[in-house]
């Protein structure tokens, strides 16, 4: 067995046996069970959307009422013609698909004269968005359909017809679109937590070995680069194990709890899962090498927390951008940001999972990330050489630069 494998195995086994890891895994599993029993998706998504809607009404009076009701939180454009059914005219469909409107809302009267709605979003419509719409539409429905009629009709009015047809060819049904977004959010959250947590483990591991002086013994037998590699690989493997445990739990619970029917988890594209793994590794290695370099330069856990602050901010920014991307994955600003290493693992994953991203963008993001990891590993190994046997005061920025310039 080679040295890196021995180091990685120790890292993996000792951490897997530690109380912290076992408790963390159990809490994580319980958390997933709890989350699975709460409605999985909608409640996650906060914040109002100002969606521009093209509105087609059945008659002038109803159209006006609907327009007023929706105006509060939507940008409404009333179409100059009236609906004859739930269908969408080809030219309007074209406008929506081309991005002129976020969605089209067709209000129509059915054979019995009841008001019904057909909703045609193009972006992955969130359930929250649809719920807001429904709430807004309830008022005009009651006003037009409920006036002085029987209880039966009142009930009908409350359960007014509302169908969603996503015009984006990616999603076959509304449920699928909503589910996709909810799941993407869930996976993004997992990715975010995993990258931060496991990355920080690497940094802490370095600090621990320094502060308990094990490094001194090790350095006589192994090279700093091997130490670094063993640590990152061992913790990376452990991270995968834990994530696999969480994923299995989530799957089991979803299937057992009967959510299986309403949330067809099997519709999550395999490509999304593959991208999740790819971007997890890119993110983990990017941040882990950074944390390891920082750890090598610090001598106390307190110091490392300070320096970690900056990297954690980068993750938070990447996460925030990804939240934006959930709503609008193809905003030009987000497209560019999603190519940047450290940000791309989360942002590009979100975009890939919610929209159709050109291959060159995915390739560029992955390529730049790999390049970043390569450079960061070289730099971290250099810092490791200088830093691992250094205690006492932290290095000044000047000394760090000198260390990085030194030939390896």
């Amino acid at each position, binding site marked *: 067995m080679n040295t890196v494998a*021995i180091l990685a195995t*120790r890292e993996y086994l000792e951490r897997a046996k*530690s109380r912290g890891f076992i408790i963390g895994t159990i809490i994580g599993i319980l958390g997933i069970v709890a989350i699975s029993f709460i409605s999985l998706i909608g409640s996650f998504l906060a914040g109002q959307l100002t969606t521009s809607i093209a509105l087609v009404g059945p008659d002038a009076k109803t159209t006006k009422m609907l327009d007023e009701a929706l105006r509060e939180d939507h940008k409404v454009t009333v179409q100059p013609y009236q609906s004859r059914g739930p269908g969408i005219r080809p030219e309007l469909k074209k406008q929506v698909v081309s991005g002129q409107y976020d969605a089209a809302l067709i209000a129509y009267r059915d054979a019995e004269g009841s008001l019904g709605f057909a909703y045609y979003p193009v972006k992955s419509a969130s359930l929250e968005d649809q719920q807001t719409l429904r709430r807004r539409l309830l008022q005009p429905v009651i006003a037009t359909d409920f006036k002085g009629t029987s209880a039966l009709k009142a009930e009908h009015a409350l359960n007014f017809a509302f169908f969603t047809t996503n015009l984006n060819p990616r999603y076959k049904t509304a449920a699928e679109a909503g589910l996709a977004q909810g799941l993407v959010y869930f996976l993004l959250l997992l990715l975010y937590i995993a990258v931060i947590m496991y990355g920080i483990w690497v940094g802490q591991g370095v600090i621990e070995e320094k502060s*308990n*002086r094990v*490094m*001194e*013994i090790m350095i006589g*037998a192994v090279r700093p680069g091997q130490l670094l590699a063993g640590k990152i690989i061992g913790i990376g493997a452990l991270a995968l194990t834990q994530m696999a445990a969480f994923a299995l739990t989530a799957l089991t619970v979803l299937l057992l709890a009967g959510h299986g029917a309403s949330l067809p988890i099997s519709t999550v594209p395999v490509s999304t899962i593959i991208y999740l793994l790819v971007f997890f590794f890119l993110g983990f290695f990017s941040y882990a090498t950074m944390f390891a370099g920082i750890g090598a330069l610090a001598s106390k856990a307190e110091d490392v927390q300070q320096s970690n602050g900056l990297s954690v901010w980068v993750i938070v920014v990447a996460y925030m951008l990804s939240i934006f991307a959930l709503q609008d994955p193809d905003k030009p600003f987000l497209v560019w940001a999603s190519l940047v290493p450290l940000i791309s693992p989360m942002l590009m994953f979100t975009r890939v999972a919610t929209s159709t991203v050109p291959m060159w963008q995915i390739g560029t993001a992955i390529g730049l990330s790999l390049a970043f990891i390569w450079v960061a590993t070289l730099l971290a190994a250099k810092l490791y050489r200088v830093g691992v*046997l250094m205690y006492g005061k932290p290095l000044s920025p000047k000394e760090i630069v000198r260390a990085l310039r030194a030939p390896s």
Partner: protein
Amino acid sequence: MLEVNHVSKAFRNVKAVSDLSFYAREGRVIGLLGPNGAGKTTTIRMILDILQPDSGEVRWNGRRVDAQLRQTFGYLPEERGLYPKMKITEQLLFFGRLHGMEVADARQRIAALFETFNLTDKLKSTPVELSKGNQQKVQFIAAILHRPPLLILDEPFSGFDPINVEVVKDAVRRLVAEGAAVVLSSHRMEQVEELCEDICIIDRSYPVVKGNLREIKQSWPDRFVRMTRLASMSFLDQFPGVVAQPSTDSVAEIKLPPGTRPADVLRAAVSAGPVDLFEVVEPSLNDIYLHYVKPEDAAAGKDEAP
């Protein structure tokens, strides 16, 4: 044989080691001495290929020390540590494997060494459950587990009580008898004197004296005399530069500068009072050390460079 050939190392503008050469032969112990900050740890790190010398080279049996070679060496660092919550037997197995040992061989050897060091009842312990002395023993075992042909010990006796100092000394002697070359860095002169055939004293990065300890002592220009302390030691006044070391002991220690013959001193002493004891002794390693390393150097010693 370990050859350290004219190695120099500077950190920025501070010289850590300047043109240092010495040999460590199989079956012998060489003592590496010097005040804090003299360059001992830097020298050890260059031997272990952790630091690269700016000039000069380190060879083992004619081959330049590289990662593969140094993996066979044993090293007990001055700053010691273990993984606090990992079972000591598992840690030793881990260290043994990092040094290229087979698992079965390492297990056997750990069991044997635990016996030697009276640790058999601690097989299942973790370091946090051990006394400091026992932790030190575990670290010492980690250094010698893989039967290193070259063993580097940095302050190996610190933290041990007198009984365990003997245990460690015996272990070192046994390794040397088996043919290991040992480099011993220490401040404890008595122990270095007991174990080392060769010494190398470094001061402010420069080697100030080195060679076979016996030869250094025999060629020492000063002579030391131990004699009964008389009521008055004023007879020494006729010998310029000779003074009895202040002491309340019944035995006086006298340093004779070159050119002063012990026989003359004895004659003068006998005429001055009853002399029960008079012996010419070799300088102690402590005397040699103090001769070469001036107190102000020791006081100016700062923390050793990385």
